[in-house]
């Protein structure tokens, strides 16, 4: 009980302490944040060791949070292998990024605020990881969203940053609309057969298993539950069609992008799928939908990365694409593969982002076409970046190879079409990463700032090195085997056919990129011409943002404006003021009776009396 609580609350304590006490001292704040994270990491390690020693398999602790007749909500932890793995990723990668941030944000004025946010984020993320029930999970789900909002908008004076933060939060809110409905539906569904509704994952699992055994499952409702819950995933993990916030989120500081928008938070969707796998996997059509969305997102995002000039955005699209892989894997019924890829991806994508941060720190710009020659100027950054690139491309023996291979293998087994998509995506991944690396690091320097770039300080390169080591070696850690504790079903050896093909495709992509961007090879002019218009589609991201903008402006804002007008003219103008006007008019009418002329007053008495006698009495 104490260890997981400490694991969860150490970053929160750091956050509170920064806000309450060390606001004015930057070093202290950074120290507190790192300390909090380190405590969490140590706790994770301790739990991990307990697991490895076989002392525990699944741990659950909970305290009641809300107890009412008909509804019991608890606050609690459920620790299993996947949670520990995720917790390890969050605390481990997080700690490295915290340390890196000290260097990256050295010139920042309000660094205390930054570290407070980061600590708050770490707390929230760990909350998602550990939550034993969907409401607790949702609470932290929202909290990470808020932290992400605050961190993206960290440079709030930049309109684009402020807008990006808002957009991220809102898109996630739309997704959470579905997620929350899913929780509600699940809760009420679970209340069947004489039992109170619950949102506790273990209880649900038990109950569903029991019902499945009895053949009492309702696939329609369960399907809906799966789809609604998946909505949350689509938002948080930025799957198509709610992917639009992630590229914009790159407005935040780069370490934030690394931590939140690459390694951990966006992966929370995949993690959620792992947690509720027993629900979504109950209905095949839901699984198909999930797999399809994941696969589409993978290739879609990869295609966008092909023409993007901004280094962080390339990485962001790549993140989208890799998340697509993971979601697809979930949909294909391979949660272990997904979680494996999640882990390796966390390492190499964090590495890539931090590397990119280092570059940006040096050249003060995001445009890869204004870089070049950085490998020599910043060797440590360059070589670690290369490691990350290779890992991402899935080149043996880097970690990406193993995890991606597992996914493609699952696809090969379950859905050939998705396998083809996955393989093409792997090629595209290699191409755009190659493009990025070659242009930024190998081509001659394209600008003054690139000319005078310097290697970053040790506090930044240190984490890079650690991450590079992890990216390179994570494939050999036996992560799937560890996870297997949770999911006993699958393990395959490496299918060399699939692996070979994907590696070949990756090499082809890298090679093509090298041909075009290093050797200056230009395919025939005709081909270029033909590629122009798809290129425009790509650079405008298939106009998805524009479509959403149109919908936002015309439907949502239009409705808002219409209702505001309705309010103004119908409710206030007609109903309220109309009544008031009518009353005043009646007042004036009554007043007009008062002619001031004596005889008409006398007449009124006569008329009044007569009418009273006529109608009041009818003699």
């Amino acid at each position, binding site marked *: 009980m104490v260890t997981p609580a400490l694991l969860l609350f150490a970053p929160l304590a750091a956050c509170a302490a920064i806000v309450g006490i060390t606001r004015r001292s930057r070093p202290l704040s950074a120290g507190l944040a790192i300390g909090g994270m380190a405590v969490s990491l140590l706790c994770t390690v301790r739990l991990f060791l307990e697991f490895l020693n076989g002392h525990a398999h699944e741990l659950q602790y909970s305290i009641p949070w809300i107890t009412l007749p008909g509804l019991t909500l608890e606050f609690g932890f459920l620790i299993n292998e996947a949670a520990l793995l995720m917790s390890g990723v969050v605390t481990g990668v997080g700690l490295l990024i915290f340390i890196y941030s000290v260097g990256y944000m050295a010139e920042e004025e309000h660094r205390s605020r930054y570290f407070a946010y980061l600590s708050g984020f770490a707390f929230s993320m760990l909350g998602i990881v550990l939550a034993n029930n969907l409401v607790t999970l949702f609470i932290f789900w929202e909290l990470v969203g808020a932290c992400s909002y605050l961190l993206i908008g960290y440079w709030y004076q930049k309109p684009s940053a402020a807008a990006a933060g808002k957009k991220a939060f809102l898109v996630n809110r739309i997704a959470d609309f579905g997620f929350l409905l899913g929780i509600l539906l699940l809760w009420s569904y679970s209340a069947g057969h004489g039992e109170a509704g619950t949102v506790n994952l273990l209880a649900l699992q038990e109950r569903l298993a029991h019902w499945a055994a009895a053949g009492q499952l309702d696939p329609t409702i369960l399907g809906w539950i799966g789809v609604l819950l998946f909505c949350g995933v689509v938002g948080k993990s930025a799957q198509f069609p709610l992917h639009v916030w992630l590229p914009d989120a790159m407005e935040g500081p780069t370490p934030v992008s690394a931590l939140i928008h690459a390694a951990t938070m966006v992966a929370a969707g995949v993690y959620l799928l792992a947690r509720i796998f027993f629900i979504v996997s109950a209905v095949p059509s839901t699984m198909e939908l999930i797999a399809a969305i994941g696969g589409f997102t993978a290739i879609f995002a990869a295609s966008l990365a092909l023409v993007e000039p901004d280094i962080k955005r390339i990485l962001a699209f790549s993140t989208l694409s890799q998340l697509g892989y993971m979601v697809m894997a979930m949909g294909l019924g391979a949660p272990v593969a997904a979680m494996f890829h999640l882990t390796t991806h966390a390492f190499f994508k964090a590495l890539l982002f931090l590397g990119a941060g280092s570059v940006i720190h040096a050249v003060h710009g995001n445009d890869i076409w204004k870089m070049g020659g950085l490998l020599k100027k910043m060797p440590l950054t360059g070589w670690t970046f290369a490691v990350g690139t290779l890992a991402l491309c899935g080149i043996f023996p880097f970690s990406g190879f193993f995890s991606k291979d597992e996914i493609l293998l699952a696809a090969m087994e379950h859905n050939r079409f998705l396998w083809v998509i996955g393989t093409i995506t792997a090629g595209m991944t290699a191409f755009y990463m190659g493009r990025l690396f070659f242009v930024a690091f190998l081509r001659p320097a394209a600008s003054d700032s690139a000319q005078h770039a310097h290697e970053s300080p040790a506090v930044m390169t240190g984490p890079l090195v650690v991450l590079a080591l992890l990216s390179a070696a994570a494939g050999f850690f036996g992560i799937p085997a560890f996870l297997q504790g949770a999911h006993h079903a699958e393990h395959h050896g490496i299918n060399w056919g699939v692996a070979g093909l994907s590696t070949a495709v990756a090499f082809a992509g890298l090679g093509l990129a090298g041909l075009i961007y290093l050797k200056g090879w230009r395919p025939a002019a005709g081909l270029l011409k033909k590629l122009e218009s798809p290129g425009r589609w790509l650079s405008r991201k298939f106009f998805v943002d524009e479509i959403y903008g149109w919908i936002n402006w015309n439907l949502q804002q239009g409705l808002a404006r219409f209702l505001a007008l309705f309010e103004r003219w119908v409710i206030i103008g007609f109903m309220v003021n109309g009544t008031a006007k009518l009353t005043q008019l009646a007042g004036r009418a009554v007043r007009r009776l008062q*002619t001031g*002329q004596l*005889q*008409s007053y*006398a*007449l009124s008495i*006569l*008329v009044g*009396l*007569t009418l009273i*006698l*006529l109608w009041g009495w009818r*003699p």
Partner: protein
Amino acid sequence: MIHPALFYSFSALTLLGALGAVAARHPMRAVLSLTVSLFGLSGLFVGLGAHFVAVIQILLYAGAILILFLFVVMLVESPETERMNIRNIWVKLLGIGFGAVLLRILWRVIGAGGEPPIAPHAVEGTVEAVGRELLTTYALPFEAASILLLVGIVGAIVLAKRKVT
């Protein structure tokens, strides 16, 4: 009970006098016409056995009030300048119309009421009988009436007097 011939003639006198008073162009004529009407009324009173009241009517009304009217008529001496305007006509028309309706209602009620039996032991309103009642049973209203008259007097004085310097 009053003899029909006397009743009809006094009634005619009363009503015609009243009509004349209302319709007369000049106030002077109206006042005189009203005097006639009041005499007719006194006649009816006598016929109903209300001798004291009949006398008082002549004395007080015809003798005092109408004289007061005459004084005022002569004092203000303003010929009726009744300009015709639309509202006036409407008021008059409506007045007459509703007056007729009201009259019709009264008529029906009075007719419907039938004829309550005239008390066999008809009390004669002699001076003595009325006077005794006034000073015994009705002593309080009698005293109050004196104050009422005081109000009338004070009121007339207050209103008519010129500004106090």
